[in-house]
């Protein structure tokens, strides 16, 4: 056995998967490999195919072509019950006629687990999720948050090799969402299973994932560690998808001059970050995240003047909307400290931290430092 064949078998692998409904292609040639114990998040706008991909991994949709492997076995033709997975649905999908206890025990009963084992596992999961007081209730007697916990309990009880989550937090309110988000990650770490998680929410995606997989139109746009996607997006699409408020765009032109490479924006020269090597003199789309723009100070010299059109003060931070004088009419958003009190009509001296600037080809909308 050579070392290369002895390397760890991934817990789940999606190979060259495509899926079409009638004439509509939903997934095209998606490949994905999940290490055992990893937490992979599929993220994307609605209609990008992320739920279909999850459902195909679950065995609820047959793929049009390609295959799915789990633990080194081709499971493409297996039905869901033979895949050793558990799934938490967006609607929770609790069995309405069964008590919480029986909802938890359902999968174990189907697998003819001995009664003593069922009791033990149900009470373990129930304790872990704080469901003890609810065990005899019916689903309709539970709040949204409680239902969500029962759905998670139903997955945990089974101790599967893989957990699948389909937007499990989208029916919860904001405060609960933040709380359960932390708990899901905690449970993942404790259970040691492999998790595949679908969401459209960038905060969930960024904070939960080991590996983030951003889908666009049924194909993988970029995959990697969350901060890698945030800091080095391969395309304008990725740069816009992550980050709140959205990234700002300015039109510039790469110029060579005696002092080296720079980007000309409305008569001003912006330094090109070091990691960009050789660039042709060409028009570029300059991406600047709101927190990389700042009010000019001793540290960050003024680069432009902002004409403020609109101000959103959240208390803990303030978003200032406006345009930059002489730099086109694109709206730019700057995040400033809440102690700044800015109002409409003000002008604001703006500085840029040039080391964070992102450059894109305006036509292909691919990053200029991305491998092509």
């Amino acid at each position: 056995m050579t070392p290369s064949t002895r390397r760890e078998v991934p817990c789940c692998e999606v190979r060259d998967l495509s899926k079409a409904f009638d004439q509509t292609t939903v997934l095209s040639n998606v490949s994905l490999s999940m290490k055992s114990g990893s937490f992979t998040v599929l993220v994307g706008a609605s209609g990008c195919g992320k739920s279909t991909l999850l459902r195909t991994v679950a065995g609820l949709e047959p793929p049009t072509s390609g295959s799915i492997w789990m633990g080194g076995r081709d499971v493409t033709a297996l039905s869901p019950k033979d895949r050793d997975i558990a799934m938490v649905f967006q609607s929770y999908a609790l069995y309405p006629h069964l008590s919480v206890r029986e909802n938890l025990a359902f999968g174990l009963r189907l697998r003819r687990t001995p009664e003593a084992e069922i009791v033990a596992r149900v009470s373990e999961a129930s304790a872990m999720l704080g469901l003890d007081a609810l065990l005899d209730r019916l689903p309709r007697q539970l709040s949204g948050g409680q239902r969500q916990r029962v759905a998670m309990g139903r997955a945990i009880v089974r101790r599967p090799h893989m957990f699948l989550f389909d937007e499990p937090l989208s029916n919860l309110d904001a405060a609960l969402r933040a709380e359960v988000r932390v708990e899901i990650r905690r449970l993942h770490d404790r259970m040691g299973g492999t998790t595949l998680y679908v969401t459209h929410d960038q905060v969930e995606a960024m904070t939960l994932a080991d590996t983030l997989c951003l889908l666009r139109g049924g194909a993988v746009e970029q995959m990697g560690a969350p901060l890698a996607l945030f800091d080095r997006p391969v395309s304008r699409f990725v740069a816009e998808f992550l980050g709140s408020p959205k990234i700002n765009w300015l039109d510039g032109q790469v110029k060579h001059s005696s002092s080296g490479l720079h980007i000309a924006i409305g008569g001003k020269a912006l330094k090109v970050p070091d990691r960009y090597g050789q660039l042709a003199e060409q028009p570029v789309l300059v991406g600047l995240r709101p927190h990389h723009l700042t009010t000019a100070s001793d540290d960050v010299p003024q680069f432009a003047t902002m004409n403020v059109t609109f101000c959103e003060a959240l208390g803990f931070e303030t978003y200032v909307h406006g345009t930059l004088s002489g730099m086109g009419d694109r709206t730019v958003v700057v995040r400033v400290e809440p102690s700044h009190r800015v109002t409409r009509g003000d002008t604001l001296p703006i500085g840029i931290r040039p080391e964070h600037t992102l450059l894109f080809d305006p036509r292909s909308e691919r990053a200029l430092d991305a491998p092509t």
Partner: protein
Amino acid sequence: MSVRANVKALVVHTLLGAAVIYALYPVLWVVTIAFSRDGLGTDGFVFPWPRDPSFMNFAIATGISTGKGALFLRQFVNSLAVASATALMSVAVAAPAAYALARLPFVGKRTGLRALMLTQMFPTVASAVPLYFLLSQLHLLDRRAGLVIAYSASALPFAIFQLKAAFEAIPVELEEAAMVDGATRFGALVRVVLPAARPALAVTALFAFMSAWNEFVLAATLMSREEAFTLPVVLQRFVGEHAAAWGPFAAGSLLVSIPVMAVFYIAQKQLLSGLTAGSVKG
């Protein structure tokens, strides 16, 4: 404010009261006639009330007073057996068909639905004759099984529509959850879908039971021996043959209604929740 609310309450109660009375009034008359010794009087016309209360008509209707009690009992059992078997048969055939219509995509679905609707448009009287000949070929005339076949055939389309709507109201995710949890598609149907659709199944069964229990035209056509009669046919004999015996007829009608009312009373919670659709939410 409170005047407006009172006026509204008055209007609502009047309206609904009128509707209830409109539907209930004939029933009140039946009760009155059944308990009147002399059959039918005219002086209590607007507000019917028995002039000379008595249970005599019930004794005549059940054959107790004429020594034919055993025959009546047998006819009662006929009705009960036929109606119960119809209810079971309709639900058993309709449920898989409705499930297929609700969940599985297939060619000819619309056509199938339309064909089912069309059979609903056909008068019972018209189907009596072909059924007579069919059942005679199958040697099922004067047999309960023959009536059950006829009744469940005519109850089927409505049952299918009813159950199709009920299954469609059950989220597909419930089945998918069961399949991920370890069930086959059939297992998910049996363990999750059917229990969740219980109220609708109960309503469908009750409707089939009721229509079979009360049906007259087919029963009169297909059954000729007295021992094979169902209760509506027995009833009709009181007024149809020679002199009209209104009192026993009305008493018999009440007796016929009692079992259905009992079923209704037992099942009323299921029924009311089954009739208000969309009750099966996770």
